[in-house]
């Protein structure tokens, strides 16, 4: 995000693990750097699960597993979009605002206690459209007017929140009146909650796009070295706009799903999600400077944070400690990842 200035000219990057082989102990550092993500994460997950199962037998129950998957679904959808954006070295802060706007638009057009209109499928189209529109706005201002994505998405965060507040107005809380819609996210298909299946479908599409399309590989190339990506004829601006549009669309979907899970509309339906999604991507090894990481790693990051949260609650830890534990974990994870790549000449922003 912030290390834009000097990588400009010829892309002289004195940073990153790629330069590691130049100094001593490099092969180990490289090996460690390459494997620390998934192996470290998976072993951390296994340890967590074992510890929590011992602390509280209810943790390993089928009901709690379904509960965890239910909680994982919203951040999982968000992290797919966030990973696309972070891979190209940008950042999308607008998550919570877009969720609020899309969720509120959707519930007001679905069967609810306030308005008597039910647009059915069109409610989905409008809700997702709001997300896509705000994402497009972010992407266009960022790519075409060359305003840093941090600032633009900070602006669209407030814009989304503003739309949600205006839609909410002064009248009563809109609650879902359709039993079918309200029950859908928790209902089980093949033993797993529907909302999780939705998230899995999004994740599968995300992996496909990220790993097997020109666009997905292009985002990685932009994050790695934008001048070279541009110089080799890649439609960089188009890719940037598309990445933010997809992220916006997924924020919209997550907003609708979260609204459905809650059963009523709320302007701050996305509250706290940004503090799960960005640490999850970073813990998973997606570098904020771009050009690294992947969907599956971010997914592991989401699971780690949600299981940690769930386990701590079941172990009787005060919820006040949640953000502290997340923060501490984030610190440990980034330091562990950055440790082998330390270098006197490395640029760390």
């Amino acid at each position: 995000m912030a290390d834009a200035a000097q990588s400009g000219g010829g892309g002289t990057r004195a940073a990153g693990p790629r330069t590691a082989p130049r100094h001593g102990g490099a092969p180990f550092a490289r090996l460690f750097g390459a494997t620390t993500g998934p192996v470290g994460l998976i072993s951390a997950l296994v340890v967590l699960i074992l510890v929590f199962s011992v602390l509280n037998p209810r943790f390993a129950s089928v009901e709690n597993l379904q509960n965890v998957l239910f909680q994982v679904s919203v951040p999982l959808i968000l992290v797919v979009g966030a990973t696309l954006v972070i891979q190209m070295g940008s950042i999308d802060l607008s998550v919570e605002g877009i969720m609020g706007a899309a969720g509120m638009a959707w519930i007001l057009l679905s069967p609810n206690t306030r308005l008597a209109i039910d647009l059915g499928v069109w409610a989905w189209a409008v809700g997702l459209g709001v997300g896509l529109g705000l994402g497009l706005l972010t992407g266009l201002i960022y790519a075409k007017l060359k305003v840093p994505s941090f600032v633009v998405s900070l602006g669209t965060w407030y814009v989304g929140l503003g739309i949600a507040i205006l839609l909410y107005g002064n009248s009563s809380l809109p609650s879902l009146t359709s039993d079918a819609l309200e029950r859908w996210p928790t209902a089980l298909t093949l033993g797993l909650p529907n909302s999780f299946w939705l998230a899995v479908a999004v994740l599968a599409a995300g992996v496909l796009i990220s790993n097997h399309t020109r666009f997905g590989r292009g985002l990685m190339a932009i994050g790695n070295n934008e001048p070279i990506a541009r110089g080799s004829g890649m439609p960089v601006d188009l890719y940037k706009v598309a990445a933010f549009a997809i992220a916006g669309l997924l924020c919209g979907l997550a907003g609708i799903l979260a609204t459905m899970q809650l059963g009523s509309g709320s302007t701050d339906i996305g509250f706290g999600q940004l503090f799960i999604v960005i640490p999850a991507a970073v813990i998973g090894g997606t570098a904020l400077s771009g050009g690294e990481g992947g969907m599956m790693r971010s997914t592991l990051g989401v699971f780690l944070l949600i299981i940690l949260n769930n386990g701590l609650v079941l172990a009787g830890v005060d919820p006040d400690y949640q953000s502290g534990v997340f923060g501490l974990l984030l610190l440990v994870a980034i330091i562990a990842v950055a440790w082998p790549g330390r270098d006197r000449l490395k640029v760390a922003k």
Partner: protein
Amino acid sequence: MTDRADPSARAAAPAPEDRAGRLPGGLRRAASWHVLAPPLVFFAILLVVSVANPAYLGPFGVSIATASAAPILLVALGQAMVLNIGSIDLSNAAIALFGTILFALTIPATGLAAIVIVLAVVTLIGAFNGAVLAYTQVPSFALTLGTFGILQTASLVLSGSETIYVSENRELVTALYATRAFGIPLTFWIGVAAAIAYWTMLRFTVAGQNMTAVGKNESGAIFSAVPIRRVKIAVFALSGFTSGLAVLAIVAQAGSASASGLGSALLLPGIAAALVGGTSISGGQANPINVIFGALTVAFVPIAAQALGFGAQAQSLVYGFFIIVVVTLTTTRARGIVIK
């Protein structure tokens, strides 16, 4: 900015040398826009509001606007110093919040010494951020997001999730808010004094020039033997210290402290004020004096929106578009620069 980045190119080719000869004029023009935009934006809004609704512009209006701008200004000043070296401090508002609770808990027993204690503690927290950044080379965004979470929990635990009212020695701190000079509370003047001090440091001292050098071109700074570790630790410590000044402003205004009270939502307005004040998010450009106008603008936008007849509900929307428009107008777009 990019011309400075590559001294070898300038030495090698005579043409850039020639261009460099003419540069000062061009640089001055570019700089003048950055210098002038923040006050212009503020006075433009002031003008629009005064035409639309004169009732908002009396001495009372000034006093309200500057009072609500004071904590934003102090947090934004620290943020501007951090942005100037190309990093970001997401934890500075959380440091301020933690500081308010510590301050409210210590002032009844220790009186004025509480100010020293709190300033020392928050400066150390900032220095810790800087040291971790300098020695482990993690990205400051993720690092300070982590300390943000830890400090949030620390605030909740320290306060027991309750509001702490300052009863004894209350007048020691509320005097900062109640005392006015030219209708403006002392808390805001503290911010102005800090801004002038920081501006002087950036402009006239080696330490300040080193900070800007790190922000403009960190690799260049390393090769020029700028002590970057010391610079980073110092800047983050400064950010913590300035958050400590914000603590005084917040407690002086509220007379109490809580983990969800005044000061819990300072992070984003602080960043917005620094950016509207012409600070570049990619580093190497900060003018603390202009951050004063940035903070005034950010504090004034909700008042302006109300004065212009937008309902309270439209404030977020106006605020969001406003940030985008102002930064779009003032951001740097040097040729070949990579915008992330």
